[in-house]
């Protein structure tokens, strides 16, 4: 197994600022917009973006939730192990809101398909957008594309993209790992 670095901490920081600016451009003061981090790894990115919008861009009203998609996935009973759920926490209304899904890597699109179904259990959003740090654009199984993307990667299928976050993994970095 070999790995190479795709994004350093500094590059990630620059990308996050760009993504935050793009979000602000489209959603202004976030009155009608909510951010939803997709469990388990999307929440780190979502929390980071929410913090940046609040502190660096002085947007007071950024609502942030987390959505677990385990029970909505299409691969239940297909793997060896039972799929284990994570926590869902959405303590605001999504009805008629502009929802921005936030995930670290967009790969096949199946997680987002599941998230689109899952969010309907909480109400009917006015519209849903997708923000992702890494877009593996040639690996899609479904017609799903991000509205905001940090970096596009043309990784092949035996490569994995690992996004590390300081809060959880001790460093900010994105690696491409080649599985042997």
């Amino acid at each position, binding site marked *: 197994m070999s790995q190479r670095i795709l994004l350093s901490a500094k590059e990630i920081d620059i990308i996050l600022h760009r993504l935050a600016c793009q979000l602000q451009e489209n959603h202004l003061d976030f009155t009608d917009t909510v951010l939803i981090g997709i469990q388990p790894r999307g929440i780190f990115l979502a929390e980071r973006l929410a913090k940046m919008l609040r502190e660096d861009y002085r947007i007071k009203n950024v609502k942030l939730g987390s959505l677990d998609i385990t029970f909505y*996935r299409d691969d239940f009973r297909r793997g060896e192990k*039972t799929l284990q759920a994570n926590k869902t926490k959405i303590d605001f209304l999504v009805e008629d809101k502009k929802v921005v899904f936030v995930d670290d890597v967009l790969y096949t699109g199946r997680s987002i398909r599941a998230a689109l179904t899952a969010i309907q259990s909480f109400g009917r959003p006015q519209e849903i957008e997708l923000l992702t740090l890494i877009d593996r654009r040639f690996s899609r199984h479904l017609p799903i594309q991000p509205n905001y993307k940090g970096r596009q990667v043309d990784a092949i299928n035996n490569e994995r993209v690992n996004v590390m976050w300081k809060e959880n993994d001790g460093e900010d970095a994105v690696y491409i790992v080649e599985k042997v």
Partner: protein
Amino acid sequence: MSTLSVDHLLGIKYLTKEDIDLIFETADHFKEVINRSIKKVPTLRDITIANIFFENSTRTKLSFELAEKRLSADVINFSASQSSVKKGETLIDTVNNILSMKVDMVVMRHPNPGAGIFLSKHVDASIVNAGDGAHEHPTQALLDSYSIRERLGNVAGKNVVIVGDILHSRVALSNIFALQLQGANVKVCGPKTLLPKYIESLGVGVETNLKSALQWCDVANMLRVQNERLDVSYFPTTREYTQQYGLNKKLLQELDREIVVMHPGPINRGVEITSDVADSGQSIILEQVENGVAIRMAVIYLLASKIK
């Protein structure tokens, strides 16, 4: 570990502590799901479950059915009272006929102890025991422990007394196994005639005085007087039973601390428990019912994930 160690839920006796932890952790997630505005997830769309009840049940059956439907499973119901069992069909024939309709899981209540175990050895489906005679009622015990954990933060180290008809109670036996597995101290309390002879061999304390039992415990689980199972007279009159083993406000007020009161239902108000206790803040009877759906969703989800 993220998978159950068993393929069927036949009794708490066959589970490990890790299994119980996994069921509780999964139930936590389902509890969040059933509090959403849309209380349904599509996970078990491809699973068909048969609820086969050879004995009357309203609440357990409703709770299972609701759990199955909230997981989007297809559900068929079968009651022995309106069926070919009356015409002399055997259990295996009945179940095999149902399984021919491509059923993946069977939730069964049966008056005979061991019926679920017997079935699991002879048919190719995942079996969930919803009560087999006076043997076990595993999902009830799980939801009881889960409710204790929710109210008191932990089951380990807690003193739990089970009061009433221990002799005929599958709830008592499953509760004893479940509570002990999680490190609780268990006592049973009731008239001598309703305590099984060798109950102490299970490692539980025995008490015939309700007052002393209450003084010892953190949780009192009051069992229903099952008049339908009492083939002979085990106590002189219901009134006398109530005087000695009925839980009332006065008894609770005499204690120096607040204990948690439970009841698996249905309640005989004024017999094993008075209305003011059943409806008080110390009672977690309604939480038990709500948790029942989450626990059953967790059990079905975890077992269904093992169906190939």
